[in-house]
């Protein structure tokens, strides 16, 4: 019998509001502990929450982007539990009437097909503070800067069947919230994190197995590893005759394994009830339609447009449409170069490689879209070869100026002067008599491959600057003349 995994995800996306969801304190990341926590965030006696309407706008935008039901009346509830970094002793959340109801997203699978994943709901809530254990031996420090940061908790249906599908879903949600500008998507700072619910069952069975929930994973790679590991652990356990305990688990990235945090028996009774300090949020069609008109182009629509407008491949279109800044960069480059395929190759190749290696965001790239477009123009008009272009790109990345400036300063202009190329060709033929003999004695249909050797030598001699087309033509002409003579 074959096993099947069932995966559902809860994603916490911090909304990019300037101030907190129920207070005026700043939400900026990285400040000194407790400098961005006001009386309300500290839960001083007598303080009261006031809802930040900007969080509402962002949540509704998300609902519209995933074609979801919008909660025209949504209500904040209190989720009661004690924890030192939860100042009020309850988290203000939305259980019974969330702002966003049932919706869906489409994910692209490796075999090129797409799959629809249901979104059960998305609700607004406040983030907790942070407990700092390492800085204080035998004590715990509490930093409440994060307390009250608005979160959108996005809950999926248990529609995913593999770690790869789960990651594709998380990436899709990530690209939607960042495209909408409602979340900065920064996973290492915790702005976007994921709880994974995993169970396994025999394929074909309808009943779900007992599930575990692995909390707060904050990278795409860790999500994939944690889910894969958890699926394996559950299958091994069941095949050994064991049972799965419904529990909360923690992913340890260092050991690449999940371990138990608490079982269902130890789970809290959160005693949810409507928060009496906040009124229900009531919105109308006018509000929703006004927001709908501000929806930016979303990744799925952009992907379709890229295929149509630029004749990109399915894969290239998916990668280049996922993020607003990347898409913008690509389109700017493609328009300057007037060559979408070339631009796509360079953006996904050389540029992405440099961004990754230097851990740089595309908006901070030292090579701007305009600069890259300028470089591509020089490839297209044969001023430089593709190989030289990589050298020019390096120099631009290092801040040495535009493509033209670098080409000029380094003298990288392609040699197209037939006389100069012919001289180099003659020199190479004269200096490599054994290879010329081989060429001459070879069957005519084998000769094509052998030209590569001479090409390499000539390009080397020209320091890559000789026009490869011209070199190839001249070599063939001269070698064939020798062979036929």
């Amino acid at each position, binding site marked *: 019998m074959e096993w099947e995994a069932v995966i559902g995800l809860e994603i916490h996306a911090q909304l990019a509001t300037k101030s907190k969801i129920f207070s005026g304190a700043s939400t900026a990341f990285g400040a000194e502990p407790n400098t961005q926590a006001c*009386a309300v965030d*500290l*839960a*001083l*006696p*007598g*303080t*009261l*929450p*006031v*809802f930040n309407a900007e969080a509402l706008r962002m949540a509704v935008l998300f609902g519209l982007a995933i074609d979801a039901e919008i909660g025209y009346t949504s209500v904040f509830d*209190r989720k*009661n539990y*004690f924890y*030192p970094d939860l*100042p*009020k*002793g*309850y988290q203000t959340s939305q259980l019974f009437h969330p702002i966003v109801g049932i919706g869906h997203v489409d994910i692209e699978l490796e075999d090129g097909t797409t799959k629809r994943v249901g979104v059960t709901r998305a609700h607004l809530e406040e983030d907790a503070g942070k407990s700092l254990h390492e800085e204080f031996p035998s004590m*715990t420090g*509490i930093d409440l800067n994060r307390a009250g940061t608005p979160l959108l908790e996005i809950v999926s249906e248990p529609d995913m069947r593999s770690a790869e599908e789960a990651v594709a879903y998380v990436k899709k949600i990530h690209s939607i919230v960042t495209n909408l500008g409602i979340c900065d998507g920064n996973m290492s700072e915790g702005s976007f994190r994921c709880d994974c619910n995993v169970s396994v069952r025999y394929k074909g069975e309808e009943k779900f197995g007992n599930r575990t929930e692995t909390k707060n994973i904050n990278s795409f790679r860790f999500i994939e590893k944690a889910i894969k590991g958890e699926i394996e652990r559950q299958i091994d356990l069941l095949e050994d005759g064991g049972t799965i305990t419904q529990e909360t688990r923690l992913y340890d990235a260092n050991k690449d394994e999940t371990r138990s945090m608490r079982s269902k028996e130890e789970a809290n*009774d959160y*005693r*949810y*009830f409507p928060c*009496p*300090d*906040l*009124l229900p949020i009531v919105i109308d069609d006018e509000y929703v339609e006004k927001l709908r008109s501000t929806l930016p182009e979303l990744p799925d629509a952009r992907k379709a447009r890229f295929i149509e407008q630029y004749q990109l491949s399915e894969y290239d279109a998916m990668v280049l449409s996922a993020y607003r800044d990347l898409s913008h960069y690509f389109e700017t480059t493609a328009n300057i170069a007037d060559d979408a395929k070339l631009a796509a190759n360079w953006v996904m190749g050389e540029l992405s490689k440099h961004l990754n290696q230097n851990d740089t965001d595309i908006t901070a790239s030292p090579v701007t879209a305009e600069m890259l477009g300028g470089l591509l123009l020089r490839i297209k008009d044969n001023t430089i070869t593709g190989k030289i272009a990589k050298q020019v790109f390096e120099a631009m990345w290092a801040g040495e100026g535009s493509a033209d400036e670098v080409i000029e300063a380094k003298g990288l202009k392609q040699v197209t002067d037939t006389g100069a190329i012919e001289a180099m060709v003659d020199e190479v033929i004269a200096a490599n008599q054994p290879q010329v003999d081989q060429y001459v004695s070879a069957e005519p249909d084998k000769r094509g491959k052998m030209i590569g050797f001479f090409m390499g030598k000539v390009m080397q001699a020209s320091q890559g600057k000789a026009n490869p087309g011209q070199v190839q033509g001249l070599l063939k002409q001269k070698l064939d003349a020798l062979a036929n003579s």
Partner: protein
Amino acid sequence: MLEKTLAGLAQGLAAGEFSSVELTQSYLDRIKAEDGALNSFITVTEEQALSQAQAADQRRAAGEAGPFTGLPIAHKDIFCTEGVRTSCGSRMLDNFISPYNATVIENFNRAGAVSLGKTNMDEFAMGSSNESSFYGPARNPWNTECVPGGSSGGSAAAIAGGLVPGATGTDTGGSIRQPAALCGITGLKPTYGRVSRYGMIAYASSLDQGGPMARTAEDNAIMLNVMAGFDPKDSTSIDKAVPDYTLTLNDSLKGLKIGLPKEYFSDEIDPQITAQVQAAIKEFEALGATVKEVSLPNSHLAIPAYYIIAPAEASSNLSRFDGVRYGYRCNDPVDLEDMYKRSRGEGFGEEVKRRIMVGTYALSEGFYDAYYKKALQIRRLIQQDFVNVLAEVDIIMGPTTPHPAFKLGEKTSDPVAMYMEDIFTISLNLAGMPGMSIPCGFANGLPVGLQLIGNYFAEERLLNAAHQFQQATDWHRQTPAR
């Protein structure tokens, strides 16, 4: 001058008969001399009071005095006051110096009021006798063996005892009206949302409402003028213009329709109270009002519903008192759970713990529908009762309490008997409407309170009716022997 009402003192200040500093010093002296017997203050802020009085006198000299400038009052110790201990009557907050002002405090400061200090109260406003205070009970000036009522017992006792001309209170189930009745003063619980709750330490958020307490309806009007108003910091406060409540005090009561709920005149009420209340209603008839019997058929459900909703909210509201950031923390906790358990176990008193446990139980998985949800349904029925009756009459009248002040210790071992003292006041908090208690006679030498209930935002009408009654009677002028 200490026998004057706030209105009288305002005239005296305006006429230059005395300064705010003189007035303030006189009250401070009297508190020092006499509060030992009453225990109505938790904290007396002598220094701040005198500097506020000085500032008020300067403001007056500069010609910038408003109607409240220089008037001394006190605040229930539930209102956060910057730089001053705000204990809420609890050991939990005995060490809490508030770093900010409640909106009500801010409003009085802006008006130039002088705060003499913070008054005693039942712990976290949970109680009807002031006996649950960590600082010991305040006592009733009419008989110091009796309770002053609660939870705003300190404010009521201080006013009745002549230690302060007016004070703030809060009312979640009768905590302004019941002590006002038991101490023979006038108190008003405004419409829910009329006075900001920001900085008022929460007991039951959907029921809590701050309001004025003083000797007369006129003084209540003067205080409410300062207290009432929309506050963007309180999402449940209502954005509605505030009238000048003193302008309608002298309107005629001709044609005023009074409703007497038959449920408020049962045999279980002290007959002397019923007699005094009936005599008072005769007085209103003499002033031109008409009277008819009405019914609030769900009244008997008010106490059970209240004792689900209020403790449920309280159990959550009081979770923040965990020993982590401020307030009481136990000595040498061995771990987090020990810190929580002992800080809360030692920091809270009996009644508070009882209500936290009741509320926690009522919200628990599997019980929510049977208790909390049911109580909310009853709440809507009770509210509808009032809406129906107030469509027919202008003011509902009845006794504020079923009994006059009882002896200290008499009901402490029987919480339900204590809860029953709020039987006539509690339903109004569930409905959210305004109510007043005014003195209307005596039973065995102890004051009796008449309750007036009006529709949403009918504070003007209530104050007008109470003022007209007080123009025709002198129950509110009676003071206990000093």
